[in-house]
């Protein structure tokens, strides 16, 4: 039959016939350098000789991977939720059992194996609302405005889907900080939205200047329809913690320019620097009075992956929507139902995060001790990282005020830049690849996050345990000095 000759040649799904937007998607955090790191790990296992004995993955914000211990209480409750026979085991404290029973009550058939409602288990959403109220000094939170999500990423992408519309000059533009966490650029690329970059100020500790927001917006309005402003606070990869004044300014700007605010607050407990404090966008919004609090549209995102929990593998998260048009909210509810529901263990974990042991409860003192130890250890490593990196000529590291990363600037010799360009590689990718091959340390080049033209950075997590971190930092220092010498 003639069709036989045709079909041998042509596939249905090729790079030409596939969704072209998907081709534009990049995600540096798990991108080419990580693939190479995994390959090197395989080679090491196979006995290949290298100048190092292990690959250190300082590319991804995964605390447990670096040895951070989970919170005992959380794991106890989750174990009982998974295998309720453990509820009569004496090793578990009563408060943990109480939480487990309550969560199971909220599950279909009292099993975490049942689908939940798409918006999330009701009692968990109620607990989230109460947490938000407590955190924000009493600002009311309606459980109906809380959506449980599969990590914060799910909520962020869902909101972007909702926002992106229009064609040509009226195509939706979304403002995002440079540097940014590349989930945003990936989602915007896939949705075919216009990414509107606003630069954070490296000279001033990665602060956000409203004048820069104005510039970016004015530029963008010439070729698209900017409708949303995304802000990550505490920042990723930059680690800055925005001041309250800054948050007010951003809210005022969003109000004036009719922009939907997306506040990515997954690192809200990761605040280390003296004088810095986390201010939730919602709280500040409401404290600014009804002129703003009844009009500015906001979505805030949180997750179980960061802070002191570090439970990335659970894919737990939530978002809270504020002042959302009821018709749009109906669409949002419809949209989330298409993906069924977030993993139930993640929902259960989120319940515990927002409803941890209270003073007087049996698990309280252990919980507080564990949380404090984790957060202060992170603070110490943040300080150490900044300090050591700043002793390296050619590396300049802003204070790591919060989150889990350092994002130092590296000055690269012109010869290195040229060689990189000849290879068709971004210069900081070239630098990081060499670092990987020579030391086994996996970082993510700044080009994966965005940076001002002509500047180069890398993102390194502060997560390895202190001893290892010191070794890592000294290896980076040595490598950098060799690199500079080699390419002078």
């Amino acid at each position: 039959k003639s069709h036989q000759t045709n079909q041998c040649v042509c596939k249905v799904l090729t790079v030409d016939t596939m969704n072209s937007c998907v081709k534009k998607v990049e995600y540096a955090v798990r991108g080419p350098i990580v693939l190479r790191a995994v390959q090197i790990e395989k080679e090491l296992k196979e006995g290949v000789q290298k100048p190092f004995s292990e690959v250190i993955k300082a590319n991804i914000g995964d605390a447990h991977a670096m040895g951070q211990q989970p919170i005992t209480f959380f794991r106890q409750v989750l174990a009982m939720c998974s295998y309720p026979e453990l509820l009569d085991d004496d090793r578990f404290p009563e408060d943990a059992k109480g939480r487990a029973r309550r969560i199971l009550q909220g599950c279909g058939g009292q099993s975490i194996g049942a689908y939940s409602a798409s918006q999330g288990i009701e009692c968990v959403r109620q607990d989230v609302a109460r947490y938000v109220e407590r955190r924000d000094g009493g600002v009311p939170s309606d459980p109906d405005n809380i959506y449980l999500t599969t990590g914060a990423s799910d909520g962020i992408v869902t909101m972007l889907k909702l926002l992106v519309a229009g064609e040509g000059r009226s195509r939706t533009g979304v403002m995002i900080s440079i540097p940014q966490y590349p989930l945003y650029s990936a989602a915007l690329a896939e949705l075919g939205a216009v990414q509107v970059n606003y630069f954070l100020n490296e000279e001033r500790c990665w602060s956000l200047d409203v004048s820069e927001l104005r510039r970016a917006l004015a530029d963008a309005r010439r070729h698209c329809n900017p409708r949303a402003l995304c802000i990550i606070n505490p920042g990723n990869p930059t680690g800055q913690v925005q001041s309250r004044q800054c948050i007010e300014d951003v809210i005022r700007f969003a109000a004036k320019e009719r922009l939907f605010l997306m506040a990515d607050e997954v690192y809200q407990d990761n605040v280390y620097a003296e004088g810095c404090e986390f201010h939730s966008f919602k709280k500040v919004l409401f404290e600014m009075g009804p002129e703003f609090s009844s009009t500015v549209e906001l979505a805030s995102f949180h997750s179980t992956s960061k802070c002191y929990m570090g439970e990335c593998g659970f894919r737990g998260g939530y978002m809270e929507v504020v002042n959302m048009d009821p018709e749009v909210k109906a669409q949002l509810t419809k949209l989330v139902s298409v993906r069924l529901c977030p993993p139930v263990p993640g929902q259960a974990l989120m319940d515990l995060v927002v409803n941890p042991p209270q003073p007087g409860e049996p698990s309280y003192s252990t919980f507080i001790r564990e949380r404090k130890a984790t957060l202060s250890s992170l603070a110490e490593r943040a300080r150490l990282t900044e300090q050591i990196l700043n002793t390296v000529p050619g590396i300049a590291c802003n204070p790591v005020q919060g989150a889990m990363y350092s994002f130092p600037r590296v000055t690269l010799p012109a010869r290195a830049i040229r060689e990189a360009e000849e290879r068709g590689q971004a210069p900081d990718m070239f630098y990081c690849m060499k670092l990987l091959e020579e030391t086994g340390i996996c970082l993510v080049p700044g080009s994966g996050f965005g940076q001002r033209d002509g500047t180069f950075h890398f993102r390194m997590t502060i997560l390895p345990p202190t001893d290892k971190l010191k070794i890592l930092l000294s290896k980076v220092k040595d490598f950098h000095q060799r690199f500079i010498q080699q390419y002078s």
Partner: protein
Amino acid sequence: MKNENNRRIKNKMSVLRAISPDLSRIRLVDQDCLSKRAAQIREALLQGLERPFKHLIDISLGDAHRGGLQPITFVRQVISACLYPSLLDSGRLPTDVKSRARNLLKQCEGESVGSYTATCGLPKIQHSLSEFISRRDRGVPSSPENIFITSGSQQLVLRLFVHGKGSLQTGIMTPVPSSPLFNMALSSLGGAVVPYHLCEEEGWTLRLDEMRRALATARRHCNPMGLYVINPGNPVGQVQSQKSIEDVIRFAAEEKLFLLADEVYQDSVHDPTAEFVSYKRVLHEMGPPYSNTVELASFNSASKGFMGECGLRGGYVEFVNLDSAVMGHIYTLFSTEACTAVMGQIALDIMANPPRSGDASYTAFFENRRNTLNNNAKRVQETLNSLDGMSCQPIRGGIYAFPQLHLPARAVAKAEEAGVAPDLLYCMLLLEEMGLCVGPGSEHLQRKDTHHLRYITHLPDEPIVQPRANSY
């Protein structure tokens, strides 16, 4: 000041109102109003309100645990030990549970299930799945690199295809009746649903003439690129014969369609004369040119079958014959979602690699499994067929019964007056009067002027349900 306020309100409406038309097109599932009402009634019963029934039975959703099915002990023991490794030192857990948990924890970074895994899943589990698939398919090779562990895999795969507007809009052929979620996902991405009717009179078979008709019609207004099949069927419960699968593969090859095979109910085959055969195995057995050219994505999950762990969201897709450049893009796309929840991955590992004969948990595991899959399908079908006004095709597989309702004209008219699908009205009345929650056929799409019900069949309290349905 007032004008300012009015303008502000008007402006507020306009910021978000102009959302993508694709989203507006998603049809909300009727299930929601039934579920809400069922929840209300359940609450009322708890508070002691008088009703002609004591308990509400909800058999509408494909969610076995919600319906009362017990989880498999081994699965939950392993998961709890992974969550709280101190349990490994206790005498509480059988040895095979402990060794499985230890093994899994070793695979996790930092030996914690709280770490991210590789994008496509823990390599050991990808490997278990590839061996499971190969065993299932009588030795057809399966490569771990082609297996992506991901929940919501169908939507991810659709995102690869769907683009274009007008006559270039991507179309995917989908069966009628079908899973409403797939159609919703497709619509929300801006794709065109190209429906092809299954033949009810023949037991819900796939007919090539119907598929050709559907395709020819669709080509006038969109660009059909894919063919979605569900085997065993959801909700209709047909199990495709090998010949039927071959025909479909040949059709896909001739018409240059990418095959999307939803095989999540592969464990649930009730008819002893029927057998689940995977699309991949049939494709392989057909030999070249089909076996090395037809592009296929097969989907499976720990949500269905004997584990029923819907809430853990563990699933995977296996790709066959995909272009390698495309595979690179698939990987990048999947990587933006980090990884699948680790609990779900663990459930898949156990599904792929259950306890072996001689292991401490073997007997209990397979007894659990037998009880779960033990199905009342035949009895349900016979009972339904004995009722006036109902008829039901043989339920060969899957987890639902999908009987046809032959409603009196008056009932249909009444429903139309109320602006409600007739089978939905029937479901609502059944819920109010009998405390039995089943799903309407309308949300699956069905031939015009036919009406159906959908409910799950493999629950222990089936004997209670049937009399209620009968008397109604």
